[in-house]
């Protein structure tokens, strides 16, 4: 059939020679491509690394806290055994400080002295007394948080060499702190407060637990609503809906919604959930609803592509054996698509976890001290807490901001790792 003498390739020379001649050029191209790819990866890793370095170097000190030991005389004149809450604990703290430095008498000096310990010290003392009523009338030793300025000094964020007028801690206070250090009355401890408290305007008393709880409740609502709704919508649109103009319009709109700036969802939430349904402001329930609106398009889109990716041969197998449409979807398609849908959901959740803009409109960008205990308690969320701290004038909030970012990143990492982990499990099961 084929004339073997007739060459398919024009020109002279054996194919092998032509190929060899071009080989170097080909490999050079490939090498160049690999170098580009490698460089791109390195650059993005480099930026990530820089981000991590800057956040960690700014924030790691926040995990420690400076404490001051005071010998407090629980004066029976100040503490009324029948009205423990009504006592002036700040006064006891002040007395304890004055007892160390009896030579401080002038009003302004006293104030400077009192400023060495946190205003939270009085509440620590109050809680201590409530637990140890028998100690009233004796002198006790108690570790209380140092003021944020002292904390910054101990952590080296305040330069002792700058002239006094430009320092938040004056020379006198510096001497007191040094003296307390020499007496072993100052120590740095792991900052439990940061992980167990709600927000505070005093950096040394501020913690992220309130925001973590708020994020938790908000995300629970989001997850519980968006996964089933998004999953069901994806399944319906992909598997059951007729393909006509209406479903096309719906599809286009869902894709559009995924690109809408998130603040729009906040406005929608404000109009619908707060103004129309009369739900309370600043609560995780509404936050979760708003974030559900925001994540639904993502979940539907990812869910649909997961369903689309299910091999048609599995569908044929199911149908040919006599499975009905619903059986096919429930028994064969969904189990195959589930890891993809879950991954989409987790990515959506991670997005929701980092979102502040839509929450602004429904009042979740707020100063909230009490730890929320449910879906209808006022609360804020982690990224909002970061934003609020970043906006605070006190220097000590800087490290808190970075520390909170670290916590947020940790949660994001855990969520994304969960996505990978889930996918592994599902893949193994098949």
């Amino acid at each position, binding site marked *: 059939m084929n004339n073997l003498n007739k060459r398919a390739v024009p020109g002279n020379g054996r194919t092998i020679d032509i190929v060899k001649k071009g080989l170097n050029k080909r490999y050079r191209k490939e090498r160049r491509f690999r170098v580009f790819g490698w460089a791109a990866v390195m650059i993005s890793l480099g930026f990530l690394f820089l981000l991590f370095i800057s956040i960690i170097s700014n924030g790691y000190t926040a995990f420690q806290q400076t404490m001051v030991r005071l010998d407090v005389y629980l004066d029976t004149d100040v503490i009324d055994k029948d009205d423990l809450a009504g006592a002036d604990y700040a006064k006891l703290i002040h007395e304890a400080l004055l007892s160390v430095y009896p030579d401080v008498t002038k009003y302004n000096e006293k104030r400077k002295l009192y400023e060495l310990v946190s205003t939270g010290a009085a509440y620590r003392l109050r809680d201590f007394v409530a637990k140890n009523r028998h100690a009233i009338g004796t002198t006790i030793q108690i570790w209380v948080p140092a003021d944020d300025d002292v904390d910054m000094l101990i952590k080296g964020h305040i330069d002792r060499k700058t002239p006094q007028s430009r320092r938040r801690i004056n020379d006198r206070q510096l001497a007191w702190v040094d003296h307390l250090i020499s007496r072993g009355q100052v120590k740095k401890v792991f900052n439990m407060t940061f992980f167990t408290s709600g927000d505070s305007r005093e950096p040394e008393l501020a913690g992220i637990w309130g925001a973590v709880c708020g994020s938790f409740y908000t995300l629970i609502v989001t997850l519980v609503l968006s996964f089933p709704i998004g999953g069901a919508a994806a399944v319906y649109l992909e598997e059951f809906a007729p*393909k006509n103009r209406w479903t096309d319009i719906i599809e286009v709109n869902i894709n559009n919604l995924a690109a809408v700036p998130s603040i729009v969802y906040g406005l929608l939430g404000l109009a619908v959930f707060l103004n129309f349904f009369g739900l309370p402001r600043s609560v995780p329930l509404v936050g979760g609803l708003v974030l559900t609106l925001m994540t639904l398009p993502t979940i539907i889109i990812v869910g649909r592509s997961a369903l689309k990716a299910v*091999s048609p*041969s*599995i*569908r*044929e*197998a*199911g*149908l*040919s*054996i*006599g*499975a*009905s449409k619903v*059986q096919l979807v429930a*028994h*064969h398609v969904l*189990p*195959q698509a589930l890891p993809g849908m879950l991954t989409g959901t987790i990515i959506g959740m991670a997005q929701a976890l980092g979102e502040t803009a839509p929450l602004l409109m429904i009042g979740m960008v707020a100063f909230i001290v009490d730890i929320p205990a449910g879906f209808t308690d006022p609360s804020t969320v982690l990224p909002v807490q970061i934003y609020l701290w970043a906006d605070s004038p006190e220097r000590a909030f800087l490290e808190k901001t970075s520390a909170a970012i670290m916590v947020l990143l940790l949660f994001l990492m855990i969520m994304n790792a969960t996505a990978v982990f889930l996918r592994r499990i599902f893949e193994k099961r*098949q």
Partner: protein
Amino acid sequence: MNQEQTTGHPHIRPGRSPLVERTERATVGQTTVEDPRISCKNVAVYYDAKKAISNINLDIGRNEVIAMIGPSGCGKSTFLRCLNRMNDTIEGCTVSGQIFMDGKNIYDSDVDVVPLRAQVGMVFQKPNPFPKSIYDNIAYGARIHGLVQNRDETDELVVGSLKRAGLWGEVKDRLKMSGTSLSGGQQQRLCIARAIAVNPEVILMDEPCSSLDPIATAIIEELIDELKQDYTIVIVTHSMQQASRISHRTAYFYQGDLVEVGSTDQVFLNPLHQLTEDYITGRFE
């Protein structure tokens, strides 16, 4: 179906009666049989506006193995998929004509495809076991159709089907393993076992051996030989040897037309149509 000796046939006799012209597309040969299991009347299939097959009239007898041969793209699979209405799942595909089973046109609007497909099983070109355990692969069909009531019955069915498919010896220790972890030939036998586990009356096979090596092919062919005792088998194949080895009758498709039907021996030894002869002698223009 008086089957003749099919092996060692001599060359086509010289000087036989003239063949039907290439341009003639009406089916040559006996399309009807007595007491057919399936009877197709004027079946035509369009993918959107494009014709895939047309004017197909063909009876399929009880307990017969009928082979569909023809160049690729001629519409064999399309025809096969008409028989269990798998074409319904393809968007834009329209089927016209009638296909009678038990006196009922399966394309009537009141026919439910679920029982139809329980009755007409299918094995595909590429093995497609469910990504589930071997056990569940077999048990699935019986479970959804309610053919088994309890664990013991299911066990019995799984073992029985695997044995019939000749797979039992190889997998009896690993029924919990995923069906996709088997070799290609084993997977195809698993698919056959899955199909026969719902005890269908007709089995459609679309080039079941095309992705298998010769040894696996031989095993499957043996299996088909066994199965023809109990089932009507419609098999698409592009191997003429295979068709001649296993089938009673052969249908030759060409460009969407059923050109010739006849007993396998007759079609291979004495084709009546020029196109058939072209194909079996390997002559193409």
